């Protein structure tokens, strides 16, 4: 069975589990799903918000998927996103440039911040074979605490847990775009995400570098034997992956929001793992999976307002989808068993 069917089955099972959960806790699932979908798609504003919610997810999903192609499990997208967003915020506060130029610098700062954050685990993996799962977790917490103390010291905001608001000049929010979607908070970040999807797809499928990275992911030893610089590929892959996660931070903190929160690792970082998995690590798949998650996340508020179903149903559905995606081999086996039984029946009958 190919990957898109597997993802589709996982989604179906996840939604089914959502129905069950609502029913078991004494809610009406039909009503729940109706408001969940309406909340995400009812009018242009809601569609815009769905896309805006999906934007950082596209990027973190892309980040995780990209690393995965090289056989690396980047679980540190949250920290890279946070640190990238922090660098972007710092640049936004400190630099006074014409808007177009400033936005480019902010996006670059976010990319570099995230990339540097992933470079450390990349080097540790390539040079000392330190497992990236553990080192990226450590980097997550280092980012968490640095941002926790740096934000109040340098960009203290009105609330204890937030930085000062960025000036409008340094934000990805664009009035015309917002008007087009009737006041949605959709912003230029979406284009950053879409361009990244295209660039990554090109990089993976059409370039020598992409071929080398994939080769390392398939079989590190064979790649080495074929003369591919494995260590270099690992470092580079983590660098790019972290950079993309950093862009997620840019779109979140200077696009969807206008300040950076402290005391929390952005949940989009972990959702990126889910997005990448559901999207089968392919750029287009990631895009679709992220929009689907964006729909669930942006619709849940409306559902919660119209019914008394807790909004965490959306997160639960996503989590269960991921479990079914991870165990899709079960569906595979059942399918094969069914096919062979049918073949056997046919033989007997004929």
């Amino acid at each position: 069975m190919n990957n898109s069917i597997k993802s589709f089955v996982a989604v179906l099972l996840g939604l089914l589990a959502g129905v069950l959960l609502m029913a078991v806790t004494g809610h009406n699932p039909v009503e729940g799903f109706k408001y969940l979908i309406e909340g995400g798609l009812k009018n242009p504003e809601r569609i815009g918000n769905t896309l805006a919610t999906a934007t950082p997810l596209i990027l973190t999903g892309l980040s995780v998927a990209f690393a995965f192609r090289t056989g690396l499990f980047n679980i540190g997208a949250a920290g890279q996103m946070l640190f990238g967003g922090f660098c972007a915020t710092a640049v936004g506060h400190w630099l006074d440039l014409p808007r177009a130029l400033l936005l480019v610098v902010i996006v670059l700062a976010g990319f570099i911040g995230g990339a540097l954050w992933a470079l450390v685990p990349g080097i540790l993996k390539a040079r000392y074979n330190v497992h990236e799962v553990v080192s990226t977790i450590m980097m997550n917490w280092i980012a968490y605490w640095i941002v926790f103390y740096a934000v109040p010291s340098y960009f203290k905001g009105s609330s204890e847990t937030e930085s000062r608001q960025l000036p409008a000049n340094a934000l990805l929010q664009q009035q015309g775009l917002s008007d087009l979607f009737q006041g949605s908070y959709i912003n230029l970040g979406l284009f950053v995400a879409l361009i990244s999807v295209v660039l990554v797809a090109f990089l993976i499928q059409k370039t020598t570098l992409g071929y080398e990275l994939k080769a390392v992911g398939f079989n590190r030893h064979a790649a080495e034997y074929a003369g591919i610089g494995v260590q270099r590929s690992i470092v580079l892959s983590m660098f790019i992956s972290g950079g993309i996660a950093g862009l997620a931070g840019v779109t979140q903190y200077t696009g969807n929001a206008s300040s950076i929160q402290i005391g929390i690792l952005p949940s989009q970082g972990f959702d990126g793992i889910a997005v990448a998995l559901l999207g089968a690590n392919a750029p287009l798949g990631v895009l679709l999976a992220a929009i689907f998650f964006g729909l669930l996340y942006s619709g849940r508020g409306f559902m919660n307002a119209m019914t008394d179903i807790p909004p965490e149903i959306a997160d639960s559905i996503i989590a269960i989808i991921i479990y079914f995606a991870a165990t899709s081999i079960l569906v595979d086996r059942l399918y094969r068993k069914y096919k062979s039984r049918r073949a056997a029946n046919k033989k007997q009958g004929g």
Partner: protein
Amino acid sequence: MWTTLEQIFPYAIVFTIPLLITALGALFSERSGVVNIGLDGLMIIGSFMGAFVTFKLQEQYGDAPWVLWVGLLAAMAAGMLFSVLHAFASINLSANQIISGTAINLIAGALTIFLARNMTGSGNIRISIFEPFNVPLLSDIPFLGDLFFTRSNPVTWFVLIILAVSTVVLYKTPFGMRLRACGEHPHAAEAAGVRVQSMRYAGVLISGAFSGLGGAAILMTYSGEFNGNVSGLGFLALASLIFGQWRPLGVLAATFFFGFASTVANVSQVIPSLAVIPPVVLKVFPYVVTLIALVIFSKSSNAPKAVGEPFDSGKR
């Protein structure tokens, strides 16, 4: 200095215990050959079930100590039950163990708050918790008494007993030997008549029970409130396991290091000799040390050789 140490020691111990028991559980799982990064989620499940059961019982029976113990056992059972999901995926279905663990984390975080909201209306459940006590006689010993036996928590002793038993089980019993064999050379173990899949199930389930206990320990020794997360302590437990090189005493040392370092960081502002150090340095310190330790250990890692690899009986 001495008084400071005396004051922060009980906190350091209380902070160490949830990490210790969770990492110890992960030790069983990884020694049997299954990576478990779902520790965070399993702790959350334990914290939720512990809070829920205790909350319901306290409504009826008040603050009797036995209620908390029932809550702890419920947390262990819930953690164990939930870990079956991970065991099934990684043992029966040969799923990617890291992805399965991630799914466990996601499910636990979302589902428990969903349920908590349905049951209590808010995502938080508050309970009253264990009272610290002075261990009779032992707390009168000079130095040691003040450090280890005054204002100590019942859960601490429970976990330390489990640690001692676990060490004996792992190294001195046939079960422990078989379990470790499954993480090193599963095919050899199978050839010797060990049922690899059953041993791995045992490893994961023990890990689930201990993580559940760890989550409940946070709740019942210092936080007093379920809120749907355990501040990433599950991931820290995983790091402690590796830092401790997959050995019970190593894990004890590593988790105590984390517990002590975090406590020092938390109280640094009220202690003049520490207040000169910027708090961010103290907070970041344990993570940086772990990274450095990983580099140093990278040459001589004691990781179980087959950890993370699905077992396929036909493949040798």
